[in-house]
């Protein structure tokens, strides 16, 4: 399976009647088993790009091709759970085919066992984020989209959830697209990093990371981080 994104541009009409360009031409492709990371300054148009890729926004130039049968799992920036359904129901409604065993395993990995029957309003943001992750993984997605899934969590929790995402992604071949502005998340999870410019967004540089995720030592990560920092200075 393969996701191909070829956006030639996207403009918004502002209330005053003018137009504003949000996306410059952007094109990239993603294979099964790959984690692509979009990194860019806030407000550069990352969320707009995701909405286009997900088919929520059809008013753009260019085209996005993803297999029509591809199942999508999504973690939005805000958890977007149904407040009137329990944690378990939230997951099952998005993934009706999920088996009890699979669900139990997901809840165990994400440490949600104690919260199955709670309503989202009773959860902390960190827990709600984990439910959103469980929901995205429960559908056994072919395309997994994570929109800043770790933002505004404390470092320890973010680190643990990042490891959990890595574990879950490693289980089955899935095209993963991660949006973040944390370099750390990007280099720990990504196979290919796409560095985006400020609005209108375009891909300034594509950085592949050849070392498999599980084998990246702290030293390697430090080297990649330094490399990226140099690149970002250069592009400014």
């Amino acid at each position, binding site marked *: 399976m393969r996701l191909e994104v070829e956006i030639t541009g996207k403009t918004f009409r502002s209330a005053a009647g003018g137009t504003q360009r949000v996306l410059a031409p952007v094109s990239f492709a993603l294979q099964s088993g790959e984690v692509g990371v979009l990194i860019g300054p806030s407000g550069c148009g990352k969320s707009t790009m995701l909405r286009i890729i997900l088919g929520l926004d059809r008013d753009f130039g260019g085209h996005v091709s993803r297999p029509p049968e591809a199942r999508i799992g999504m973690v939005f920036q805000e958890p*977007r759970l149904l407040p009137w359904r329990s944690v378990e129901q939230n997951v099952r409604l*998005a993934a009706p085919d999920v088996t009890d065993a699979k669900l139990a395993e997901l809840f165990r990995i994400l440490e949600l066992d104690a919260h199955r029957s709670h309503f989202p*309003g009773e959860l902390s943001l960190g827990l709600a984020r984990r439910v959103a992750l469980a929901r995205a993984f429960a559908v056994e997605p072919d395309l997994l989209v994570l929109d800043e899934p770790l933002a505004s969590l404390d470092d320890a929790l973010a680190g643990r959830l990042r490891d959990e995402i890595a574990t879950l992604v490693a289980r089955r071949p899935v095209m993963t697209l991660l949006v973040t502005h944390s370099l750390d998340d990007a280099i720990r999870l990504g196979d290919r990093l796409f560095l985006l410019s400020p609005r209108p967004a375009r891909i300034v540089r594509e950085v592949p990371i050849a070392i498999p995720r599980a084998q990246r030592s702290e030293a390697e990560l430090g080297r990649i981080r330094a490399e990226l920092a140099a690149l970002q200075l250069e592009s400014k």
Partner: protein
Amino acid sequence: MLRLLSFALLLAIWWIAALFVGAAKLPSPPAVLDVVVAEASSGALFLHLGATLARVSLAFVLAMSLGSAIGYLMGRVKLADRLGDPWLILLLNLPALVVIVLAYIWAGLTEAAAIAAIAINKLPTAIVTLREGARALDRSLDEMASVFAMPRWRAFRHVVLPQLAPYIAASARSGLSLVWKIVLVAELLGRPNGVGFEIGVAFQLFDTPRLLAYSLTFAAVVLVIETALVQPFEARATRWRPRAA
């Protein structure tokens, strides 16, 4: 407890007022109770109450289901809103009496005319409330349902309907009180039975105890329906909201 006390106070004021005004204008509570018992033992009370209740429930169900569907459509589809809005304003401002009289003229003094007239009176408020509800729907949850490819019916039942529930409950509650006021007018003008008919008769005879006996029993029935049906539904619809400690 406090509610009971407040109810007792109401009874006391009534009784004292009755002593001052005289039994012809305001009979005392026991006098009214006597009439209630007499009417109940002859069976007339239940016949009239039943007739009115049947009309209320039919008109209520008709207006709620039609009004909810139209209101939802108007809240979701701009074109429907544009087309329907002038009609809605007209209906909202049409006096209940006009609708009832016209219905009787056009459809005869029939049961169908009465029920339709009552339903038409309730319809626009149900539409307005549900339209507000549909406009307030959370788009981010719609997007979630769409990304996860939820089938239309599942999304409606689990994503949309729970958001509409408070509006449906509000519309049911205000609608019930509206229907109960209007059904009596419709019965007074063109039905041979029902609480409204009895009140019309009592009015012609200046029979205040009878008038109070019928209206108070019906008020009691409405109160029971409100506490036994509408409030539990509301409580269930909002049970996911974290309760204030």
